[in-house]
């Protein structure tokens, strides 16, 4: 198929940036979206032009690097996939595809479609861990019994790949699905309960500091999340946060 691509190009963080249109031809439906971008980039390189810069790494939907906003949706029109798993069979010959970076004040553009998501790292550094020394000798793994349901829910929350689609999608650029998932994973496990109150407060405080918006429960994040992280995690975080103030100190 032949396609017109309307791609956001921006030289640097400070550059204003703007859209540039490109045409690509003979795109197979079996290609992934990024493979289609590779085709475009090879053509640009052949003309000694700078290729379009975008984050990508594992190309199997698990590293969370890729981050394109395609035709008005994070990771494009398909559900339950990252951009690297989006296949061109979801588009038709002659389509015009708009490709933008994930946009949020807390995700400044580095170049073209590549954004800086280190705010996510800083949120996790604020408390996304259990304070246990790796060099210590913990007790036997099976001395902590965890109900299967809790372990499964924790696993569901932990599946988050930190891609930022939730933020990009949310009309408020809120990171609550991401933070909610991380808070939930630990809140659901006995190992994480110990520091639960402090963790949720610190992570929420850092999230606010980074400049993410507040949740208005539109549910868009859950729909666009490539890993289907549930809104329940936000509710759980809210509960934990309220509880930390009502019951803490």
């Amino acid at each position, binding site marked *: 198929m032949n396609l017109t691509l309307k791609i956001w190009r921006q030289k640097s963080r400070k550059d204003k940036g703007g859209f540039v249109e490109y045409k690509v031809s003979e795109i*197979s439906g079996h290609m992934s979206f990024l493979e289609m971008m590779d085709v475009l980039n090879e053509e640009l390189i052949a003309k000694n032009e700078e290729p379009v810069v975008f984050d990508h790494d594992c*190309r199997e939907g698990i590293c969370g690097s890729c981050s394109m906003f395609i035709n008005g949706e994070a990771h494009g029109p398909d559900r339950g996939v990252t951009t690297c*798993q989006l296949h061109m069979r979801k588009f038709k010959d002659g389509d015009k595809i708009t490709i933008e970076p994930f946009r949020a004040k807390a995700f400044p553009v580095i170049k073209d479609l590549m954004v800086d998501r280190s705010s996510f*790292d800083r949120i996790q550094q604020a408390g996304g861990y259990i304070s*246990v020394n790796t060099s210590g000798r913990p007790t036997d793994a*099976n001395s902590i019994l965890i109900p299967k349901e809790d372990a499964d829910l924790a696993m569901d929350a*932990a599946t988050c790949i930190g891609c930022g689609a939730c933020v990009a999608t949310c009309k408020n650029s809120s990171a609550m699905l991401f933070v909610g998932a991380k808070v939930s994973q630990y809140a659901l496990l006995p190992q994480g309960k110990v520091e639960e109150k402090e963790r949720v407060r610190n992570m929420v405080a850092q999230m606010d500091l980074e400049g993410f918006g507040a949740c208005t429960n539109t549910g868009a994040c859950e729909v666009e999340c490539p890993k289907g992280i549930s809104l329940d995690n936000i509710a759980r975080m809210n509960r934990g946060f309220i509880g930390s103030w009502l019951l803490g100190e």
Partner: protein
Amino acid sequence: MSVLKSNVPEGPIKDKWTNHKNHIDLVNPANKRNIDIIVVGTGLAGGSAAATLAELGYNVKAFCYQDSPRRAHSIAAQGGINAAKNYQGDGDSVYRLFYDTVKGGDYRSREANVYRLAEVSSNIIDQCVAQGVPFAREYGGVLDNRSFGGVLVSRTFYAKGQTGQQLLLGAYSAMNRQISRGKIKMYNRHEMLDVVKIDGKARGIIARDLTTGKIERHSAHAVVIASGGYGNVYYLSTNAMGSNVTAGWKIHKKGAFFANPCFTQIHPTCIPRSGDYQSKLTLMSESLRNDGRIWVPANLEDAKAIREGKLKPTALTEEQRDYFLERRYPAFGNLVPRDVASRAAKERCDAGYGVNATGEAVYLDFKAAIKRYGTEQALIHGNHNPTDQEMTELGEKVIEEKYGNLFQMYEKIVDENPYKTPMMIYPATHYTMGGVWVDYNLMTTIPGCYCIGEANFSDHGANRLGASALMQGLADGYFVLPYTIGDYLSHDIRTGEIPTDSAEFIEAEKQVREKLEFFVNNEGKHSVDYYHKRLGKIMWDKCGMSRNEKGLKEAIQEIKELRADFWKNVIVPGKVEDMNPELEKAGRVADFLELGELFAKDALERNESCGGHFREESVVMDGEQVGEALRNDKEYAYVSAWEYKGEPSDAVLHKEELEFKDIELKQRSYK
């Protein structure tokens, strides 16, 4: 006498590690504060090492090329992690894990290292559970296990199909704790481009900030390389697009020996290639082989009809199918080790029985498992006379619970429903057992330079068993390196901070800069990917699942020519001092072009079939095992450690003879 000193401690194998730990020097906590350690790579090995070293009190500087340590490619490991816990009571033990790993590696690994790995394996599980890794559990609340290819016990712990992700996030969380305390200084989007040696010791690195393009000098008292494997030398592999050999190759060029480069693992269960534009291959967890049966059509005409789309696989009767693994290896069936399964699939496809349009695919069929689980579930639900449809529905539910995310991924990529029609799979490069040579302490031949995880050669011999990579990465990072590095650093407590304005740093930076500038100034005509793809094709065709002398010699020549062409005609747009992914790729491919040749040279030198390295000249000529790989312990029971001397063709071979005192060398048989 070899120049290689493995430094394996004396004594019985089961006491070696304990004795060693008891006798090595330690650094006192006050002095650790004055010691800096650089860790390159933040996957399972690097991440766990950085966290643990920081906890111990060292100042750690961690580097990763990704935008966050959490994205290192360990994250993509699906199946699980082995540990000799024997929770299932099925006869597992440290010895059995050790034995399985050495045997699975076809007796080309260092016995003492493997024993230590098995010994610390159960600590890993304790550690990960303590830090909140949500492993799968049974209804009683205890940890669940599954069995994995090539072994007879269930010792694999898992977190759905995302075990690597969960373990990495565990290590990442441990890192975060130390980053927030200022004990780890994290350098995201940084790539190490050289190691700096002062007085023969590793004292720092030259790194490029990938965001700004700035070249930086970083000093430390020791450098740890944990940069993963070099599977991308094949261009197409299950590795991430950015996975590279650069860190390992740079230290190789500065004096670290590179061991067994030809030992690569071709994983049997990947989604087949669909066209030339393909940029990477996607792995389907090996755990699928627990329930899936692998087959091709028994008749050539059927295979042809399927390739042409005239026949559906579901239309073939049992008699028209060839379950070739079950036929050839009745004892292990579909669970034979990866190398055996991969070669068997290639053999069938080469013989014309391959199934998708490219002819390079075999079926992985879940119909029998669905039926088996369906019957079982029907009985559990009190239905003693289930209809076929009820049974299928119940069975599919079980399969969905076990492999739902994998099935979904398959459907997204291939656009076929694997519950209804068998999956197609084909082998793909997945893991490299070879890597930088290290001694028992995980130190390379450069003093103060360590190498851990997939980047080193140590524990998997010629073939890695499923669910062992995660085990090794975390063992090295959490439990081995933090002890052994102290032995070296105890001599460095009075050194003080290493300045970065010495002649050595200046010279190293200059060389790095010159090379980068060459790329952006070169007026070439072919992109980096053009060369990478061509290198990949040579490697796959001539250094792939099956190798012979003629092909290897051709490969050496072709790679040499390709490399010369690369340095003449490669084109890299953009600037050095800017975000420039093409420039990053150029540097990586330049290193692959050298490694590829050494790889072929090593494969040529090793005229035996062992593990993932199959030499057509070395097969069993008669008897029950005819045509199977033939190992040659008399001549090749050694590690090939290559010393850099300029061109790859000039590399000098050093042999570390392998001794097996606690295990009897046997020809592997999975029949």
